[in-house]
């Protein structure tokens, strides 16, 4: 399995919610991959922070999050993290772009954290989501609009399945 494959399963692996085969693949991969191993440590640290129901964020985690917020230009995240205490490091640690959580993992983690009702966890989850590129100024494009454009064009075909296409036309629009 590649690093990309492994990282998709790390959150579930940390929760012991993977198949034996997936667990074996992760355990075989980690000793030889510092990047994936570091990501697993980070995930476990965040999950441990939630399970303690503590408002305390591990200091090294806060430092890493602040550095990343500054690198990505996310001042609102930086402000939220500073409000929880801690200061950004004097120099930003070198960080490869691949060493971030996937958006799916961040979303999944944030949902679980928010459902746990821990205020600091919600702020942390917001920071994690922002790390993965959902930044202020990002515009949402509904898939439904794209499907509608596809249908409208399909109706211009001379042998169009008119009734099949029309049954969907406008279905998903707000």
């Amino acid at each position, binding site marked *: 399995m590649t690093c990309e494959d492994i990282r998709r399963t790390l959150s579930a692996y940390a929760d012991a919610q993977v198949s034996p085969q997936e667990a074996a693949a992760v355990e075989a991969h980690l000793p030889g991959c510092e990047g994936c191993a570091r990501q697993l440590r980070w995930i476990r640290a965040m999950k441990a922070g939630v399970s303690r129901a503590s408002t305390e964020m591990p200091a090294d985690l806060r430092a890493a999050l602040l550095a990343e917020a500054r690198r990505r230009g996310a001042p609102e995240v930086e402000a939220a993290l500073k409000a929880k205490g801690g200061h950004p490091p004097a120099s930003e640690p070198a960080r490869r772009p691949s060493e971030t959580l996937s958006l799916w993992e961040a979303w999944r983690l944030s949902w679980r954290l928010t459902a746990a009702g821990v205020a600091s966890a919600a702020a942390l989850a917001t920071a994690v989501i922002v790390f993965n590129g959902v930044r202020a100024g*990002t515009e949402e494009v509904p898939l439904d609009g794209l499907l509608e454009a596809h249908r409208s064009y399909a109706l*211009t*075909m001379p042998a169009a*399945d*008119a009734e099949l296409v029309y049954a969907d036309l406008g279905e998903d629009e707000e």
Partner: protein
Amino acid sequence: MIASLTILAVLCAAAPPDGLELMRRAGEPPREAYSALVAVSEARGKVKERLVSVSAWPSGRVTREVSGPSGVERVIAVDADLEWVCWPAKKTCRRRALPDPLARRFAPDEELDRASENYAVSVGTVAPLLGRKAWLVEVRWKTDGALRRRLWVDRERGLVLKAERYGPDGQALSSMELRKLERQAGGEPARFAPPPGYRVLDGVEPEFLELEQAGAASGLEPRPARWVPPGFVLESVDVLKPGSKALIHYRYSDGLSVLSLFQAPPRTRLSFKGRTRENVKVAGAQRATALRAAEGLVLAWSRRGHRFVLVGESGLETLKKVAESVP
């Protein structure tokens, strides 16, 4: 001599018509007005069924009422040069001009020629449907013989009484069947107008642009696919603007079905609105995800900051190959 001509006439009369021509004529206005109840079924993960009440007139006007569990969900009216979609629950209608088929890069005849190059179309006889004699049209992909369409066409009226659509892997995508068909009594009603109190929004009709035009209109560097499934060609391009950012819509046609590729600029995020989807792997791409829709499959991914979406009837491996060819 006369006997030979008579035999020839009988043979010609008995010969089934051209299948693609039957399909094309099924989309034309009817010779006489009718109303029908159509059941539409689609496989989107799970099967979804709807009833559509259709009324059609020789003028070309067609009204469709799509019903769901809570009643009429949408009313779609095609009236002369306008298409209306109305949502009774929201008291809203969207109005837009119908696209001009002659504005397409490929005229209808060219598309049908392409379809006949890619598909083998056979026409045979079949048991009557709804008490009406019908032709059975079967459309198969020439390369592997996979059945892609099956249509029951009314011999007298040319209407499609029943239709089935299949993906290249043989999976049923959608189907429709007339449950009731009767002549439309009375004259054609006045031109369609939204009910009183409805908000009317103006929609945008599809355009048919060249690549360079789309690039200029969107401000994006066009990045069409370098590989598409055999038989497909880039027919035209359009520029969409769902918000403040413009997207490019590349439309590929094989004469029968459509493959859409959408290109969105950086700092856009796709909203799937709760659709069930799965992460997949596309070489050289980030965040690739796939889901099933009535149109077939949807594959979305990111590359070099841009977001891309493919929509089509092709299988996942084919869509991934297309995606991997997008620069």
